[in-house]
Each structure stands twice: as structure tokens, then as C-alpha cells.
């Protein structure tokens, strides 16, 4: 397991370059090289800079699949909710069917994404060893299981139902599964926000109350977008799209107006850019396209597309922001001085 480093000139140059990078960015998350050794000359430890300015927290170890999973799972979950709502309100059966199939597709895609991120994928079933109400990851795992089953069951039952040219028991089963998938789907759309909010990473936990709603809105927006892109243009969908976009505008505005060092990562650098892009795409842009697009299908699809892109950027951006935030020791060291935690520990 030990790596030997022969200090030849080439590796030295690499190291120096990395140290410069580390000096600029505070840390370089790269195998074998640590943020240590930079910046030079070394700052002596103090209450202000902490221990040589080194990070207190560990960065998330998640791989690229995770934000994608947040996006897919959220969208699929919202779709399931929409299909159920449509069914209950006696809306067009075709719409219900489309929504169910999109949800089922997302439900099928989600587990592989989540599992491939695990350090030990072969042990993914251990997620079901226990059920821990205080662990968003555990709640999420169970939700995902329930959602994947119910969503695909609903879609499948729907298929059977049509083959048999309408069979009551099957339709009842389909509706039951649909209802379940709606509830768990809403969980899928929101729990990922709780997952990030209830961590030790300042940029995330400072937004514990915002993230779930934020992700929900973004999920709704992308769900609407997906259904529309699949060829629907119901007014109801457009209305929901408007609502989602409006919510995103509110969230974006609140983020922009709040200040504080722990929020920096949300506004600066790559992460900041992604979050802002996401906000604009799924907020003002989508809203404008729907509002001024009138009855134009193209404009609605464009809005849907914008919402989808925005939603993806948002998820990637927030995860990236967590990395940056974890590297900054100052908010971690000084946390809690001025703020008493909302809710507290029940």
C-alpha cells in the first residue's frame, strides 16, 4: 500500500506546481499530494487562521454519479407525483401513462447511479440492514427502494391493463402503486436536500431549510420539462412549470441577498457559476419563456429544456460548493458563536 516517491526533478516540478496551486486555492485534492506544504512561507497557527490554515473538515468523497442521481431521482419522483395527481383528477389517461413511464425510467436509472458511487458497491444491500429515522441516507435508501418498486409496478400494471383491454383488479393495483410512487416520489424530490442540509459542511447546513424546497422546485421544473418534451402541451403542465420557475426565482433571490463567509462557495468559483447558471436557467429564463411564450409549444419546450439544464447545473453546483466549503476552516472554527441552531436536537 505504500507509495514511494523518488524526488527526481520531474516529480519535484510537479510537486512545486501543485504547491503553487495549493497556495492559491488552499488545497489540492489529489492522490499522494496534500494541501500541506502550501502556502509558503507557512503561516503560524493562530485563533484566526486555525492550524496552518489547513481544513478542519473532510471533503465529500462522492463521485460524479451523485449529483446526477439527485437530478434523475428528483425528476422521476416529481413525475410520479404528477401522474398520480393527473389520475386522481381524472385527467387524460395518456398523460398519466407518459408520466408513469418517465417516472419508471428514472426509477430504473437511480439505483445503479447510487450504487456505482459506493466504495464497496457489492455491499449495497447493507443499506437495508437497518432503518434509521435520523439518517437521511437511510430514509433515502428505503424511499428509493419503495419508489423504484412502486413506480415500475405502476407503469407495468398500466401496460398489462391495456393488453387485457381493461381489467379492474389490475387498474386498482396500478392506481395503488401509482399512489405509493407519488408519495415516495415526493420523498425522492426532497430528501436529497435534507441529505445535504444535515451535514457538517457550512455551505450546506446554512441552507438546511432552503435545500429541500429548492430541490423540490427544481425537480418539479424538470419533471414538467420531461413530460412536455415527450410531446405533451397541457396548460396544467405549463402552469406547474410557471410555479416551479417562480419558486426557483424566490430561492435564487434569497441566496443572492444573504451574506456570510460560509456562503461564499455558492457565489464564487466554478461551484458558484454552476449554481447561478442553474438558478437563471430554471428560474427567470424558464419563467419568462412560459410567461411570454403564450401558446407556443416550442417556447414551452425551450422552457422545459431550460428547467432541465438548470436543475442539473443546480445539483452539480451544490455538490461542488460542498467541496469548496469543506476546505475553508474559518467558518467551521467560528461556527455557532453568534447563531443558536434552529430546531435544536430533539
Amino acid at each position, binding site marked *: 500500500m*505504500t507509495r514511494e516517491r523518488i*524526488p527526481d526533478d520531474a516529480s519535484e516540478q510537479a510537486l512545486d506546481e501543485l504547491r503553487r496551486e495549493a497556495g492559491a486555492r488552499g488545497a489540492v485534492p489529489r492522490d499522494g499530494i496534500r494541501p500541506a*506544504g502550501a502556502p509558503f*512561507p*507557512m503561516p503560524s497557527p493562530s485563533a484566526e487562521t486555525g492550524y496552518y490554515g489547513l481544513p478542519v473538515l473532510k471533503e465529500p468523497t462522492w463521485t460524479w454519479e451523485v449529483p446526477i442521481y439527485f437530478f434523475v431521482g428528483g425528476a422521476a419522483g416529481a413525475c410520479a407525483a404528477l401522474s398520480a395527481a393527473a389520475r386522481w383528477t381524472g385527467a387524460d389517461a395518456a398523460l398519466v401513462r407518459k408520466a408513469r413511464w418517465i417516472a419508471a425510467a428514472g426509477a430504473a436509472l437511480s439505483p445503479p447511479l447510487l450504487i456505482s458511487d459506493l466504495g464497496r458497491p457489492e455491499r449495497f444491500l447493507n443499506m437495508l440492514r437497518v432503518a434509521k429515522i435520523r439518517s437521511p441516507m437511510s430514509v433515502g435508501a428505503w424511499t428509493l427502494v419503495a419508489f423504484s418498486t412502486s413506480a415500475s409496478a405502476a407503469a407495468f400494471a398500466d401496460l398489462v391493463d391495456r393488453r387485457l383491454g381493461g381489467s379492474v383488479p389490475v387498474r386498482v393495483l396500478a392506481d395503488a402503486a401509482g399512489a405509493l410512487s407519488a408519495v415516495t416520489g415526493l420523498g425522492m424530490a426532497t430528501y436529497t436536500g435534507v441529505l445535504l442540509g444535515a451535514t457538517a459542511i457550512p455551505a450546506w447546513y446554512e441552507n438546511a431549510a432552503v435545500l429541500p424546497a429548492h430541490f423540490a422546485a427544481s425537480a418539479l421544473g424538470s419533471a414538467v420539462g420531461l413530460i412536455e418534451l415527450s410531446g405533451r402541451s397541457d396548460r396544467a403542465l405549463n402552469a406547474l412549470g410557471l410555479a416551479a420557475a417562480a419558486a426557483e426565482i424566490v430561492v435564487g433571490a434569497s441566496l443572492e441577498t444573504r451574506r456570510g463567509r460560509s456562503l461564499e462557495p455558492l457565489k464564487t468559483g466554478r461551484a458558484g457559476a454552476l449554481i447561478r447558471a442553474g438558478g437563471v436557467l430554471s428560474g427567470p429564463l424558464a419563467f419568462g419563456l412560459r410567461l411570454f411564450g403564450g401558446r407556443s409549444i416550442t417556447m414551452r419546450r425551450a422552457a422545459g429544456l431550460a428547467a432541465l439544464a438548470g436543475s442539473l447545473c443546480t445539483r452539480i453546483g451544490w455538490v461542488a460548493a460542498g467541496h469548496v466549503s469543506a476546505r475553508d476552516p474559518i467558518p467551521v472554527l467560528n461556527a455557532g458563536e453568534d447563531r443558536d441552531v434552529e430546531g435544536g436536537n430533539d
Partner: protein
Amino acid sequence: MPGLGTSFGRGGATTSQQDLANADAILIMGSSMAENHPVGFQWVVEAKKRGAKVIHVDPRFTRTSAMADHWVPLRAGSDIVFLGGLIRYVLENGREFREYVVRYTNAPTLLREDFRDTEDLGGVFSGWDDEAGKYSPESWLYEGAKPKGGEPGHEPSGSGHAKERGGESQDDLNPSPRDESLENPRCVFQTLKRHFARYTPELVEEACGVSKEAFLRIADVFSSASGPEKTAAICYAVGWTQHSTGAQIIRAAAILQLLLGNIGRPGGGILALRGHASIQGSTDIPTLYDILPGYLPMPLFDAKVDTLAEYIERNGAKKGWWNNIDKYIVSLLKAYYGDRATAANEFGYGWLPRVTGDHSHQAYWIEMADGKIEGLFVMGQNPAVGAPNSRFGRKAMAKLKWLVVRDLVEVETASFWYDSPEVARGELSPGEIGTEVFLFPAAGHAEKAGCFTNTQRLLQWREKAVDPPGDARSEAWFIHHLARRLKARAKLDPSPRNAPLEALAWEYPTLAPHHEPDIETVLQEINGWRVADRFLVKDFTELAADGSTACGCWIYSGVFPEPGHDNNKAAKRAPEDFYGRGWGYAWPLDRRILYNRASARPDGKPWSERKKLVWWDDGARRWTGNDEPDFTKSKPPDYRPAANAQGDAAIPGDAPFFMHPDGMGWIWVSSGLKDGPLPTHYEPLESPVANALYPKRQKNPAAATLERPGNRYAAFPDRRFPHVMTTYRLTEHHTAGGMSRTLSHLAELQPELFCEISPDLAREASIVHGGWATITTARGIVEARVLVTARMPSLTIAGQIVHQVGLPYHWGSRGLVTGDAVNDLIAFSQEPNVRIMESKALECRIEPGRRPRRAGAVEKLERLMEEPAGNA
């Protein structure tokens, strides 16, 4: 060992690590104990908890300083000025423990009329011969003492490990003239006062760079821990010994402790902190050229000791313990040559090789460089990076016909022929090196049984846990099976030279699975036995001079008094008291604190309840107490020897230092040291600073520089090498790294060679923290990472700023982490008494950036040496 040996009688630490807990003050100097002896340091922490003050004097603020109450940075190489300053402070302020000094030391003894001090002769004592470059110490003798046998003084070939010419100062005298009022201007006390009169706080400030205030505070704290109720201890390591005045630095500490009455008492003493598992043992049972086991001198050719009688006459003493030397040498010869050692052939004395010159490490390495040595054995050592001037050393090895290396891993010494810097630099190439190399895998400490002797003279047995892997074997196995082969061959060729080999007693039973010799039988031979019936002797008091006993090392005799593993005292693991009696075996005779007779007043009662250790039990008519009395148990305090009594009988009942003919602690050493009866400050062989005391005597005149191509020195002054350089170890590594660079869990803790420099020097030389620097001396050139730290202060010496460069020396070209060998920078040089190199204070230059690759490095060095030294 002569620093301690000549002062007290034995060349070993006078105390134990545990006993530090009893000290009221502890001076750590020439050592970073917390870093290099962390587990021993727990006893210093213990003492701190009990309220002791800890003082650390060191050029660097180390992990030891971080735990100390007082730390003062001093310039590397100015130790004797600092200690001399303390001695003067004690004398001027009457801080000495008067009764102890008068009754237990030679302070009252009168000296000869013709003695002249360094203060009179501008830096040398009387008897100095400039042509011969050595002293004739006759004028150092006590008044009325006659030099014994032939011309006085030392043979140049001899070295300080042995008790050479022991006690010539006393034999003809009974008792020596003393002035217990200490007023007589010719008594040792007054001479001492005069000698150190100029070592004022001002001089300390000027020469050491220690502020007057700091010095006075420390002097007060340390000298206050003295008298009946208090004691202070001193800990030192190679930070003292590796100097051209090494033995004399330790002498200065000994004088200080004798004046304060801190020897032989709880919480007192001088603790020499050794750096290797059995470095004390390898001197007690020496792999050294000038002594035989038990500090018996090797026969010196120049000393004209061709017969055993001459040897005993010259090296023995009529008074004091060394009167027994005949018993010890004869018993040793019986152990060596067995039945072939008879009275008729002087027990084979004639077979022992004669020492005809300096055969010490550095001396024979130079012969190696000149092609005079054909073969070399290296066992558990790594001179290719671990020895001074390792660059010179590696080139010398290329001149060998054959080389045998035994170690756990392939060390640089075995691989020099293909991966040394010299090969990289094109100075050597495998195709041109004719050295035949054998690299043997060695057994580790848990793969063989045997005992180490630790820093406090404690023999501790190791049980064997597992067999060594593959073809790995112990050194004992190697020697045993080599001996078998050679003796068999000697049988076939009965020439005189083969007589000793053939006569060598070599019957050791071997054990499965590898035919390892049974080590306990070797320890029994070391303990000694009666030749007639092989009954093990109880201890060395049973040894005889008539050939009826055999003993491999008299000072260890008593470690195995009866057969059977249960009687192997080194293997004892049942400690009974604070000093650990019942755990291991401390030579001599399991005594844990040496000279502990001094812990009682002359009348035999403890100095105080708080500091009692051993005392005279009048009822039982014997010495008793919390330790084995280091004294003849039955000898009452009021015992007075009869005129012309001999040996131990000639030692009075109130003379604790009975190894010495006069039974006194020697503030004054009239015989046994080659560079003077008292310590004197000389600058290191390389120093940017002029000798503030003796402008005409810059450096120790008796020290050898061994200057030659490949072992060059900086001039004085020398602007090419303006900075003081010192080397040291880190907690995370061991010596030159052979036992740590290959271990991932240690290597990652200190992965690169670095130098420590002050912010001032960094600014001056425009060197950046975390970057690279190239350090050069007249011998070699290395590159190192830079750690800029205020822990390595620049000091003001005689009005000018002196920068110091610190370098740990653990790296080499092999292992998980590699780096340049700092020992390439160190010079071969010899302290006169023990021929140790000076690696703690040299001159260097430092520049930003990495050294040139390949041949460029050498070219850079040579260009630099061609530059004029000029004025600094």
C-alpha cells in the same frame, strides 16, 4: 568513556534513568533527550511533576526545550566556556558542598611545584611538546608522586578507553599531602579557582552567545540543587562527545557535579545517554582496538610490555581496585585460550596482537584509502552514509579486495559499488571497482537470544521469539561457523602465527534448526568459571591470577553465578524496588547507582532523610540501604588502612571512589587524559570565531585533524564557509536510517532531508521556507529542504552575528525515502582521548537552490575550494 572514567573510576553512567525522578534540578546539555530518548525522558517528566526544574542548553529549541523550564541557545562548540562559567559561579559564590568536596574529592590534594596552568602558558599546560604534538603529564602528578616505569606520559598508540597506567599518581604515597582548609595555593581547589577565573558571565555571553541574565538565572537554579537536602543531575549525549574536546566537556560536568556533591546520591549523577542498543556493552566487551573486555588495555608495542609481568606492572595499581588486574587478565586469557593457556606460556599472553599505532575506525579507514587493508567486515553498521566524511569513506571501500556486510536490508555500504553518489557523479564505476562484496542477511532482535547493555549499565536478556527468515542468521552464528572453518584450517598448518587460532578455546554447543551457538554458554564464559570443575564463579571476587579461573569479562562476572536459565540474572524480570533490582543485571555486582557510598556522610549516616540511599548499619556492621552498596560491604566508615596496605585494603572507609588509588573523586586528573588535567576552552577545529581565552591556541593542540586530500578543512578565518553547522537526530529516524528509512511507518513521518535555519539567515541568503538549499563544507556538498524557524536562532558572538545551520543526518540513497548523506560534510578528525570525530560544530556555506546533478556537484565543490579563503 575516559571523561567519566578518569573522574570517578568507571567509564559508565553513574546513575539510572529512573533516578532522575529524584532530582531537584536537571541539566540537559549536548542532548535532545525528549527527541532521542523519549521513553527515558518520562523520568524527567516525573521529576517535573515533583517540582524539579529542567534546564536545556542547546543551539536549537528542540522538543526537549519545549518541555524545559529554561532554554538557552548557545553556539555549538562553546560548551566548556558555559560549564566553566558554572564552575566559576559555584566557586566565586561559595555554592560548593564543602564537606563533600573536602572529604570525597581530591580538591585538597597538593600539586607539584613545576605545574604550570594554561593561564600561565597561553593555552597549554606544562609538559606540552610542540614537535611531538603531545603532552608529557609528569608535572600534573600530585606532589611527591613519582612517574612509574620509564618515561612518563602516554604512548601515542594508546587510547583513553583503557585505564592506562592507572593510578601512577598515588602508588608511592600514603597518604597524599592534603590541605583540608583548601587554602594552600598549590592545592587542587585553588588551582581550579585560578584556572576558571576568567570564565565570567561576560565571557559566556561573548563566546557562547548566552545573555548574562539567562546564564545567571540558570547558574542559580542549578547550583541551588546541592547540599545535604538537594541534588541535581546532568544528562548528556553525543552533543558533548562528538567534539575535538569531547572528553574534557564531560570532565567539566564531572567537576561541577563533584563540587556540588551530586555524585553517588539519589537524583544526582551524570547520565550518559547512549545512542545504540548496546553501545555501553560494546565498550564493556569491546569491539574496539585499544582495550580487552572489562577495560583491560590491549598490550601496546611502544609500552614495552612484552611479558605478562610487565603488562601487569604497567597497567595495574598497588592501591585501589586495579590492584586486581592480574586476576582479570589471566582469567581472560584462560577464557580465550583454555587449556593451552598455562603459567609456562604466560597463559598465552604472547599470542595477543600488539597495538602498534592508531587502529581506530577513522585511522584504518585512511589506511584503506591507501590500499593497505585487503578485507573488511561490517556488521550492523552503515559507514557508507553513517560515518564521518562518508564520501571519502565510500571511495576508500572501492580499494578493498573484499567486503563482508551483514545487515537486515541492503544498506548503502553494500551497494556503494553501483548506487553511490560517486557512481552517479562518474567518480567511480562498477566496471572499475574490484571489491568483492558479500552481503549476508542478519537476524533481528527477536530472532535470536542474547543481551544488550543499556545506557545505565544494565544487562537485559532477550528471549528468542521466532527463527530468522530464509538464510538470515545471527552474528554469533556467523562468527561461530567462521571460527570452525578457520580453526580446522589452522590445525593443518602449525606455523607460529596459527598457534593462537589453533589454541583458541571454541567449544560452544549449537541449537536447532540452524546450528546457532547456545548463547547462554557464551554468557556463562563471560561470567567465568573455575577451570578445574567448570563451576561458575559467584562474581569477580572469586577470580584468581594463578590460572585456576576463566572469565570473559570481569566487570560482568556475577551475571550468571549458577547454571540454568533461572540463574541468568540478565533475564530476571521481577523488579523488587524503585531502582529495579530483580530486573536485569547492572554491572558491577548489580549496583544501580555507582559510588553510592557518597550518599552517606563520612561517618556513614545519610546526608539527610530526603536523600538517603545507602548507609552504615552499626548493629549489623555492614553497609545497607535502598541499593547495592558500591563499596566493600563490611568496611566500616572509620576504617583506616595500614601503611603500605595494598589494593582495596588501602582504601579508607570514607573514600567512595575506590577504583581510584586515593579513593577520591578526581576534580583533578593527573593521569589518564592526553589533553590536560583540567578542561580548557578551545574552539572547534572549524570555527568562524577566535578563541576568546587564548588567541594563540585556537584549537585543542592535542587533537588530530587527519588533514589530507579528501579530508580538507576550512581556513581560519574563511569567508567561503561563514556559518556554524551542527548535525543531530530526529525522533522519527535512527542514526543513518538503516533501521528506519525502510519502514513505511517511520519514513512517512520525516520523508525528506531538511535543514533548519533562522529567519535572519534565510533573509540574508535569500532562501525560502519549503524550497531547496545547498549546503557545502570543505569535504562535501548536499541539498536539503529548508525549514525556516526561530527555533534555530542566530547568535551575537563577540559583537558579530553568527548563523547556525542544523542538519539531521538520517538519509541516504536507499530506502522508502531518500536524500543526500549529511555525513559527506563531516571531517575525519580525532579527539585525543577517544579519537571521536567532531560532527557537532563545523563550518559550512549555504546557498538557495538544489545542488548540481552528476559531475556538476563535484566541480562546484572544487571551484569553491580554489577560491581564496580571504578574510571572513
